């Protein structure tokens, strides 16, 4: 089992009032699954994904990632988990504008302390795989949204993660670009990568093996 959420609650206090963002979330994810999280706007999808990705905390319940209790994790250890197991894909890409495509791809490898030659090989491999070799020396601002998201996915994949977390990866893209991205996800999933995506689109959700529906922070 890759991860397990038991009775997760998350709330914020606003003006003395408790507002629940997540209520009693329970589910397990096995390796190799492709899960879609759906729900209306404001239902807590992004919040849930951030909790799973350990970008954000929770208030109550238990969360185990690869048999380790996330609650007890130290900051440093968490950074290790990102490095080794998790890749993120964001709706707004979050590429670094000052770095070229190539350098953006290389960054996660720097933090894994790989040798220069190894890094080069891996970056070249990714550029090739996503068909963006010609763009390697461009800056993100010089790319279209679809191309940027390709780079974002490539960056998420470069460190060979077990799990990819994607928050509306096609949200800013046109439909043909979106289909291309979803195709890539499907391929990856078939290679054994676990994927959890947040999406508004039924069509995109169909690429997945399972759908979790949220309403007001609760699974339905």
């Amino acid at each position, binding site marked *: 089992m890759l991860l397990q959420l038991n009775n997760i609650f998350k709330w914020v206090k606003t003006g003395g009032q408790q507002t629940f963002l997540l209520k009693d979330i329970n589910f397990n994810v096995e390796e190799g699954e492709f899960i879609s999280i759906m729900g209306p706007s404001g239902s807590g999808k992004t919040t849930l994904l*951030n909790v799973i990705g350990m*970008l*954000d905390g929770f208030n109550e319940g238990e969360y185990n990632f690869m048999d380790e209790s996330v609650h007890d994790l130290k900051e440093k250890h968490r*950074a290790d988990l990102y490095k080794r197991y998790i890749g993120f894909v964001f709706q707004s890409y*979050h590429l670094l504008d000052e770095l070229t495509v190539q350098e953006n791809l290389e960054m996660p490898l720097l*933090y894994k302390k790989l040798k220069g030659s190894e890094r080069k090989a891996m970056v070249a491999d990714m550029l090739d795989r996503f068909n963006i070799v010609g763009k390697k020396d461009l800056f993100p601002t010089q790319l279209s949204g679809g191309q940027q998201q390709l780079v974002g996915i490539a960056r998420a994949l470069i460190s060979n993660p077990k799990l990819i977390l994607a928050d509306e990866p096609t949200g800013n893209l046109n439909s043909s670009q979106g289909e291309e991205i979803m195709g890539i996800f499907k391929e990856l999933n078939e290679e054994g990568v676990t994927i959890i995506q947040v999406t508004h689109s039924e069509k995109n959700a169909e690429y997945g093996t399972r759908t979790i529906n949220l309403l007001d922070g609760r699974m339905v």
Partner: protein
Amino acid sequence: MLKNYLKIAWRSLRKRPLYACINILGLFAGIAFVLLIGAYVWQEYHVNRSLKNADNQYILTSKWTDQNMGPDFVSLGPPAAILKETYPHLVANYYRWDGIRSVVVKENTKLREGIQIGDPSLLDQFGFELLQGDASTVFNEPFSLVITEEKAIKYFGKVQVVGETVAIENFSGALQDFKITGVLADLNENSISYINDAYNGFFIAKNSSQFFDRADFDNWELPIFLSYVELQPSVTPKDLEQPLRNILNDHASEGTRNNLTIVPVKLTDYYLNKNSGLVKRMLYTLGFIGLFIIGMAIINFINIAVSFSSDRMREIGIRKVLGGKKKQLVFQFLAESIILVSIATFLAVGAYPFLGGLFEQVIGKEIIPLSAFPGYFIAIPFFIALTIGLVAGVYPAFILSALQPIQSLKGKLQISSKTIFVRKLLVGFQFTLALVVLIAAFLITKQIDFFFEKDLGYQKEYLVSAATPRDWTEDGVKKMITIRNEFETLPEVSNASLSYEIPNGNNGFQLQLYRSDASSESKVVSQGMMIDENYLDTYQIPLLAGAVFEKGVPNADAVLINEQAVKSLGFESPEMAIGKQLKNVNQEEPLTVVGVIGNIHFESLHTPIKPQVYVDVKAALYYRYFTFKLRPGNMQGQLAMIKSKWQELMPNAPFKFDFFDETLATLYTNELQLRKASYSASVLAFIIVLLGVFGLVSLSIQKRIKEIGVRKVLGASKRNISQLFVKEFAVVMVFAIVFAIPLSYYIITLWLQNYVYKITIGFSAFFWGILIVAGTSLMLIFIQTLKASNNKVIDNLKTE
């Protein structure tokens, strides 16, 4: 319109308090310091300028063919008087004085004071203001005395003291009542009553000079008087050249005539230029420091303004899109910078009285209060606010207003690599200057420590000196020797010595010696000292050959000489000098060398050790000091014992002692001040550098906040994040260090050229300077970024 600009500027600053505070703090430090320096420079430039007819007042200085023949600020007595008598169309007035220190007694108050015995023209020539008394008659009667307001209050507790009397002691120990006929308003610093940092508060005319057996202004062999002339309007010092030459030729002895030129120096220039321009150099140094500090503050301002502007890109874009003209944007920015500078200036003026106190300690001199400046000086703060505001604001204003609207709307400052380069250059400049100042401060300290730690040829530990009362007669000396022996019986005192000189740079007379077997052409100018037979033991100066003076009998023709004199006179060894005869120019009787002693640093380490000749105080009959060598132990207790013995033996003399470190400190007043000044400048520079770094790093973090989040998601640790920023600044620092090392080395080498005895510059000052500046800056960066990367990742990413 203007009001509108100011209003908007004010609002926009209030929205960004951190930005405003950092800038105000930096500017405040810079401006406050510059105000103080400005006030000091102004004050120093005004020394002697408030004298009556200041432009016509001249001091007669002496230029000797050999510097050792006499100091330059004193001269012969007669020429000034003859000038006025013979050339009344050139010289309107003259004043000469002889300075003595003696005990002034008023009931139980008994203090040693500086007393000035001079011509009665004092008040008339210089226009000193009398609070009480009639300027035209104050010196009519013998034993009249004019004192300053300060002394009146010190002795009487009030200013209305005309008609009161105080007693003054002469050098034979006799007391004489003097009647106070005038009270002077406290004098601004001037070169008439202040000379060489000592100032006089008691003024006596020469009609009382006989009592002191001094002020023999008619003597042609005594070049020891301060002498001033007031020239007639439109007369230049050049007009005096020939008359002065003629006067010397007509009256002076051959030795004087051939070696002395009297040079009139305008008093307004004299103060700034004396001691080879020491004051002037100090003013230039301070001015440079002031410029440097204010420069740093302005650079910071520019840096931070440009940096923080990315916050305001959108505002700029919208203004532009809405039709704002470039000119209006420039004005808007200038208004902001002027407001910031004005606040800083206002605070700086407010802080003047407090910081002034600190500054006085650094400078070692009182600094005039704000109220003492002329009224129109009120315009200066406004002027500063406006000028600095414009200078500091103009660059950011143009950079920002020249942006393309589309860039600004995107909220992104597309900083060109050139701009980044300029910005780093400026920060690098700050680093460099801070490093230079700190390294210099360390090396100045090292040189000063060297002054106090260097082997001076004598042992200054446990040495205490105290001024004796004066009775320069045979009986007087005998009595002092008896008293000296009494002191030596105290268990607290291991040695006691009576002498005219102590090693504080002031020696009594010069001798021009040559060997009896050589011609007078080979004469060696030597410092003459008057000491007793205990001097060597007290100071622990080694005796290299021969013997010291005999006890009991005056040794009129016997002299001790130092090693340097042995060399200068051309003896092969100390032993070879013993028993040899020396002749003093203008003196029949030869002197016999009875002993050779080790070299001691009698003067400061600026100058090389000179040939010295020691004569027996018992024969010379001049003495000024007791020196005591205490035994190790409780100093305070020992001094108390000496004091009570002193009061028992010499009930009329005040007991005031100095440890030798204090005596030495007077030799190095300027250096000690320079050290304080350089440390103050370092602290200031340091603050400004840190503020600059702080401002830039905050900006950098703000700009890269999203990047921090992304990097963390991709596996960066907190350390990785900090390193990112540290690296950015480290490059700049390395460059700064590369420039700072040779620059500070050069400056200090230049400074050290003032000293004959000096430190080797070495490596450690650089090491510590760099370590402190770079270390602290890096630490600041590290802490700041650590805090920034402590955020929850999600908060970073949300910031769009």
